[in-house]
């Protein structure tokens, strides 16, 4: 009689079964043990209170107060999951104000490695690693025993025992000048590609070459030494402190949408996975002014996003990487944003007449014609700190006044930009350089903008925990 309703319920049963199967035994065991510990503590508190009340009735209230202050009290703050890792704190590295690294180190989550490799005059020591679901921080020391400066050209991650690279991006590596005799301590952060986890076994390669002003901006140089260190990640500990929280929330402003899939919490960072539907009529490229707000011991702590994997031109998956303080057992974690970064794709055209030296069409009035000299066209705009900041990017193909397609001159520099900023006003003057091939172009020239600042404002708050 209720076949349809029963069918729907049975489908939910299947989903529930899937979610039940994926939770780890360690997480379940930790919940059970924590519950028993808290139950024991509450029992002891209650027995102590009963004894005091029986002995001295008038002092009972004061004794309750003592019990509250000394041993967790009658109403125990909700005990959370295990928040202490197995490792001693990493020393010798300046972690600055970095919330993620300081929290992880204080709670014993930076896995010591302490492996060294020497080639020629260079020695690299991999001191430690902090691993999350898709991110890894690598702490290392370079000893330069040469009589000249050395240059750390790059740090690479490969599959262990092979030269095959892994899909990742790396920040803050390369272009480092190390003095003769210097011991240089530094770190690099690695973000794995979309839906790629940090591998359990890998090889980290450190490329070091003699420092030269001729090659300082190049990723490789003559005479470089490559020092490989094999790494085994303590995955058991990583998985024990990693948790995935499904969100399944659709954010919407007018008819534009942004879908929050899930958040992956780990001591190395919080990963927010999202999707931008291709059905959006605006070019939505992310959340505007997005951050996480956690509450730790009654205080609000802001976790910023330091990087993101962006979607393609037509929408798609997007990944934000936030700081993490989950080892501080925040009472709540809330995603907050002020809107969407969105522009009208029909406005993403830049039409310039180089003969008249003016911009005929642009998304707004903020772009100015700079100059057209020696087939180099410049466009300028001010990027104020209070403006809805976003990059202005131009596609390499353009169309002339007769509808013929051209591409920019890559040999002459292609597309580039420079900026001059004022610390007083907070204004940066950005100059975009567009190098064209020599020739006379029928006017005007129509360029396509691949990105441009724009915002649809609306405040969002999404509880994650």
């Amino acid at each position, binding site marked *: 009689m209720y076949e349809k309703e029963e069918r729907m319920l049975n489908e939910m049963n299947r*989903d529930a079964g899937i979610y039940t199967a994926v939770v780890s035994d360690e997480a379940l065991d930790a919940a059970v043990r924590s519950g028993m510990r808290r139950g024991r503590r509450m029992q002891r508190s209650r027995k102590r209170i009963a004894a005091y009340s029986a002995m001295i009735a008038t002092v009972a209230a004061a004794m309750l107060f003592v019990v509250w202050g000394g041993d967790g009290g009658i109403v125990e703050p909700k005990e959370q999951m295990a928040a202490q890792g197995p490792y001693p704190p990493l020393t010798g590295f300046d972690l600055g104000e970095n919330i993620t690294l300081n929290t992880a180190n204080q709670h014993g989550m930076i896995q010591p490695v302490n492996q060294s490799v020497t080639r020629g005059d260079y020695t690299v020591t991999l001191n430690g690693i902090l691993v999350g679901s898709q991110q890894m921080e690598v702490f290392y020391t370079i000893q330069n025993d040469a009589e000249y400066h050395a240059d750390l050209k790059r740090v690479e991650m490969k599959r262990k025992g092979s030269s095959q690279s892994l899909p990742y991006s790396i920040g803050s590596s390369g272009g480092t000048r190390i003095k003769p005799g210097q011991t240089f301590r530094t770190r690099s952060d690695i973000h794995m590609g979309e839906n790629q986890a940090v591998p359990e076994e890998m090889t980290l390669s450190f490329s070091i070459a003699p420092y030269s002003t001729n090659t300082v901006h190049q990723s490789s140089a003559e005479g470089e030494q490559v020092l490989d260190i094999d790494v085994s990640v303590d995955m058991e500990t990583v998985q024990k402190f990693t948790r995935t*929280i499904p969100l399944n929330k659709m954010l919407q402003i007018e008819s534009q949408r942004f879908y929050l899939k899930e958040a992956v919490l780990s001591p190395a960072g919080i990963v927010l996975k999202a999707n931008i539907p291709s059905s959006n009529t605006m070019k939505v490229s992310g959340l505007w002014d997005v951050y996480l707000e956690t509450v730790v011991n009654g205080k609000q702590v802001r976790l910023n996003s330091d990087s993101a994997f962006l979607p393609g031109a037509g929408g798609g998956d997007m990944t934000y990487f936030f700081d993490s303080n989950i080892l501080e057992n925040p009472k709540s974690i809330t995603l907050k944003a002020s809107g969407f970064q969105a522009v009208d794709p029909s406005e993403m055209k830049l039409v310039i007449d180089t003969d008249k030296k003016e911009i005929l069409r642009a998304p707004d009035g903020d772009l100015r014609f700079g100059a057209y000299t020696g087939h180099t066209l410049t466009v300028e705009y001010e990027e104020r700190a209070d403006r809805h900041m976003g990059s202005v990017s131009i596609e390499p193909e353009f169309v002339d006044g007769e509808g013929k397609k051209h591409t920019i001159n890559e040999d002459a520099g292609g597309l580039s930009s420079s900026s001059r900023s004022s610390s007083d006003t907070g204004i940066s003057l950005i100059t975009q350089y567009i190098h064209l091939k020599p020739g006379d172009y029928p006017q005007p020239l129509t360029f396509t903008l691949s990105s441009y600042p724009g915002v649809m404002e609306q405040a969002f708050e999404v509880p994650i925990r």
Partner: protein
Amino acid sequence: MLETKELAAAACRGDEEAFYALVTEHRRRLYGIAYSYLHNESDALEALQETVCRAWMKCRKLKHPEAFVPWLIRILINCCVDEQKRKKRMVPVEEVRSRETAAEMVSDSKLDLERALSRMKPKYRHVLILKYYQDMTISDIAHILDVPEGTVKTRLHQGLKLLRQKIEPGGAVFHV
């Protein structure tokens, strides 16, 4: 290896190892029930933790240790209901039900079902969840909820009827 009955009796006498063994044997099932109510891993694990805490504190007063597991599930259900009441979601926009076919999107009917269940009276919601989300028998449900089997059958029938009334074709959901 002790039988469940013996473990329960030992647990109710304060034997920590027996209590731990018994709860561990059923932990995944308890988690599954909590997840059916709370729909996310973090909340379900916290509900499990709270359940274990309450059960440990109260198990010495359990008159029938042989009913330990149904009693434990009853505590868990109460924890889940408490958590549902305490939780306040602050999303300023309504959950938009996607009409798209991407695998990650939540379907209309799933949202409708969840909403209909959440607005149902607890006595109907519990039997539907335990029967359909956890594949429990009428007898099991009767033991957990401490009601006669006939009452469970009646509530199941009524619950399905209410579900049909609450979910209209196209996805509109009416408040109780």
